[in-house]
C-alpha cells in the first residue's frame, strides 16, 4: 500500500532528524517550508473536507479522517524530536556559559591569591 511507504518514509525522516539535526540555517528553512505547507494543506482540508477522503483513497487509507490522524501523528512526533534536539543544544550553550564563568572566576582568584575563602 502506498500509504505504508509514505508513513514509513516519514518515520525514517523523523529518525534521521533525531540523529543528525544541527542548528543550521538551511534546516531552519526546511522546517519553515514544512510549516507553511502544513498550513496550506490544513486550510485546503478545512475548505474542501471531502477531498481528504479522495486523497486518502489514492494513498490506500480508508477515510480522510484517518489520513488526518496519520499526518497529525507524524507531525507530533517530529515536534517532539525537534524539541528534544533543541533542548540538547540549549544544554550545551548553558554548559559553555557556566564553564566560562567558572574559569573566569578561577583566573581572578589565581591572580589575587589573598587567602580569603569565600563562602
Amino acid at each position: 500500500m502506498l500509504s505504508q511507504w509514505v508513513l514509513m518514509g516519514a518515520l525514517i525522516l523523523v529518525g534521521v532528524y533525531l540523529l543528525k539535526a544541527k542548528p543550521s540555517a538551511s534546516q531552519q528553512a526546511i522546517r519553515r517550508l514544512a510549516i507553511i505547507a502544513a498550513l496550506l494543506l490544513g486550510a485546503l482540508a478545512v475548505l474542501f473536507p471531502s477531498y481528504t477522503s479522495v486523497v486518502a483513497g489514492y494513498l490506500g487509507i480508508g477515510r480522510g479522517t484517518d489520513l488526518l490522524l496519520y499526518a497529525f501523528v507524524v507531525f507530533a512526533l517530529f515536534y517532539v524530536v525537534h524539541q528534544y534536539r533543541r533542548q540538547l543544544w540549549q544544554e550545551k550553550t548553558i554548559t559553555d556559559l557556566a564553564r566560562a564563568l567558572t574559569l573566569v572566576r578561577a583566573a581572578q582568584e589565581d591572580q589575587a591569591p589573598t587567602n580569603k575563602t569565600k563562602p
Partner: protein
Amino acid sequence: MATTKKSGRPAREADAWVVIPLFNESEVIASVVTELCQSFEHVVCVDDGSSDDSAELATKAGARVLRHPINLGQGAALQTGFDYVLTHEDATHVITFDADGQHRVSDALEMLELARSKRISAVFGSRFLDKRTKPGLKKKVVLTVAVIATRVFTGLRLTDAHNGLRVLSRETISKIRMEQNGMSHASEIVHQIAKARLAWREYPVEILYTEYSKRKGQSLLNSINIVIDLIVR
C-alpha cells in the same frame, strides 16, 4: 596556593594535576583530598553545584576548588577541570580521580609513572585486569553494558570503560573535548582518544567498594542512558 606543607615528606608531584569532579561528597571528600595532597601538589576539585559543604571541606583539605554556578554533570565538571589545567603551562599530565574515595592514590602514581616512562597519552584504570576488585552482580551488568557500548562506538577494546581513574597527557586533553555532560563522558573520552589515534594502555587498579561508594553507584537503568547518549548527540 593553599597546600598543607609537611616537612620531611618526599617531593610531591608538581607536573601532574589531579582533577576531581565533586558533587555532594561531604562525607568523604576531605579525606580523599588530604591523601592526594600528600603526593600531589596540585589537586583541583570542580564543584558541580553541590548543595552541601563539599567545596569548603575540599578547600580546607588543600584542594584548589572551582565552582560551577549550577549543576551540569560529571562530564562537564571534568572538562572544566581540563580547561583549567590547560591554562597552567607547567602541567604535563592530568589525573582524573573520583571524589567518593574508591580509587587508590598508589594506583594513580603507578599509572603516572607508566604514562611518563612509556610516553603513553592515556592510561585507563581497569578493575577487571586482575582479581582484586569484586563488584556485585548488578555492578557487573552495568559495567559490561558500558564496555560493550564503548567497543561498538569507539572500536577500542577496553575492559573497564567507566573507571574514573585515568592519567592523560597534556597533549591528550588539548585534543579531546567532552560534550556529554552526564555519565556518558567516560565512553566519549575513549571515543575521542581512538579518533585522535593516541597511544593508550589499561592498567590494573583496585576499586575500594565501601558502603558509601556502593550507595552512590550507578543504577542499572542508567546504562541505557549511556548507550542512548552515545547514539543521539
